[in-house]
């Protein structure tokens, strides 16, 4: 290395990229969010070819590449397929303080998993296979947090 490089006072620029976005939600997910927001209901949609029910709904079946026009109301109950208790804190990312639980919930009447929070139970009591139900948020604004969390069915 050249000698002068040892002598340089190195500068570091702290920075941040903040760019606003306006993401179009699209007809399929908009319909889903409006049903949750206005009626407190969770719906899925079904592939006309293979019959697979997706929740959250999809524009196309990933297996059959078919349009999804067949909507199905789900009871809001399901089974925990996997979960994790998050113990680290990322205040700008996490809507909750640790420890909190993420789970993949296989909802009754659906064939795909829904990723969401599991709450209303001590984190160390959550188990794979546990039966849970969706708890809707009181104030709903048409996004994924209109489902507050899933809690164990007593």
């Amino acid at each position, binding site marked *: 290395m050249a000698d002068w490089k040892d002598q340089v006072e190195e500068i570091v620029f702290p920075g941040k*990229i903040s760019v606003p976005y306006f993401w179009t939600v699209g007809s399929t997910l908009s319909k889903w969010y409006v049903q949750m927001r206005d009626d407190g209901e969770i719906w899925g949609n079904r592939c006309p070819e293979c019959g697979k029910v997706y929740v959250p709904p999809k524009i196309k079946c*990933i297996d059959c590449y078919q349009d999804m026009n067949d909507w199905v109301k789900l009871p809001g109950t399901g089974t925990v397929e*996997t979960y*994790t208790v*998050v113990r*680290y804190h990322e205040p700008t*990312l996490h809507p909750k303080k640790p420890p909190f639980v993420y789970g993949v919930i296989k909802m009754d009447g659906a064939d795909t*998993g829904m990723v969401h*929070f599991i709450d209303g139970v001590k984190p160390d009591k959550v188990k*794979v296979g546990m039966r849970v139900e969706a708890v809707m948020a009181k104030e709903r604004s048409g996004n994924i947090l209109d489902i507050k969390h899933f809690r164990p069915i007593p």
Partner: protein
Amino acid sequence: MERVAVIGVGQTKYEQGKRDTFHELVFDVAGKALADAGMTIKDVDNIVSISSDFWDGRTISSMAIQDAAGAFGKDITTVEGDGTFGVLYGMMRILSGSFGVCLVVAHHKGTESNMNGITNTCFDPLLERRLGLDALSSAALQARRYMAVSGAMPRQFALVSVKNHGNAKNNPFAMLPMDITVEDVMNSPMLADPLKKLDCSPVTDGAAALILAAEREAKKLVTNKKRVWLLGVGHCTDAYRLGDRDLADTRALKKAAKKAYSMAGVDPWDIDMAEVYDAFSYMEPLWLEGLGFCDDGKGVEYLERGTFDMDGKLPVNPSGGRLSANPVQVAGLAEVIECVLQLRGTAGKRQVKGAEKALAQGINGMCGQSHCVWVLGK
């Protein structure tokens, strides 16, 4: 079909808090790869640069590192994702007939930003991003699912960390060579059940480069000792949403591996050593199952028997793996480089004796959404 060879390789030491800029890192490893091949930048007719917009903090398509890669006035293109996919693009450019010699170079400085914040942007802003998911919490969901399906236990995953940090002691480029025990892993801080600190790869800085050449060029430019052939490659992608997949099902990897083995004309048992993407401990046995080295759900049993140790039937991650250094995007390129060094017989203290065929596997997306599998040979 014309064959493509790796004819030169270069990498930095992987560490935290590097003070070199991206330019300096790229210039360093490009120079090392050229020197290794005994050629100059004039012999290179195209460049593939690998990084990530968010990790760079600028759009990589602007080719900001072009001068460091010797690319000014040449055809340079970018790959956003793992280095294994960059090698695939480089090979395809050569096989198109348009190019003869390709410099593939990747750079990454994890310490300049925030891993959780960046990997959160992998998630759909229309859906799960608001939940705050990131690479670590989603990996934890996959680890638990794998446990539920296979019966594997966290203590068995810990064996991967013990093995790979131990292997790193023989790799001067690795960041975390360590003598640790299963107890050390189990007692390290719990981050997201079942993943503890020592189940997770570290935030890392570094860069790597390799030079690909068409057979006709490779034979002109370097001796037989330096040439390592790309025998086969396969690439396959699973569903974007975590819930649209069974996280313990490696169906995309199985397809990618099948394509790579078929193109190379080999079976899994022809492979002498493998570098697989152990961003988290549990991934190693899961990917080894998908690669066909053992039946589904049996990865940890083989691990316990020592099959994947340096003196086992199939040494896995002799470099120390991603658990010992994980410069994202660079990591897969470092895997391919490790395979090249092993096949040349120049891997020093970590040399797998008589290695003739090697495998490297890289991933993109959350929980191994996409896989790129390489088979390399002498």
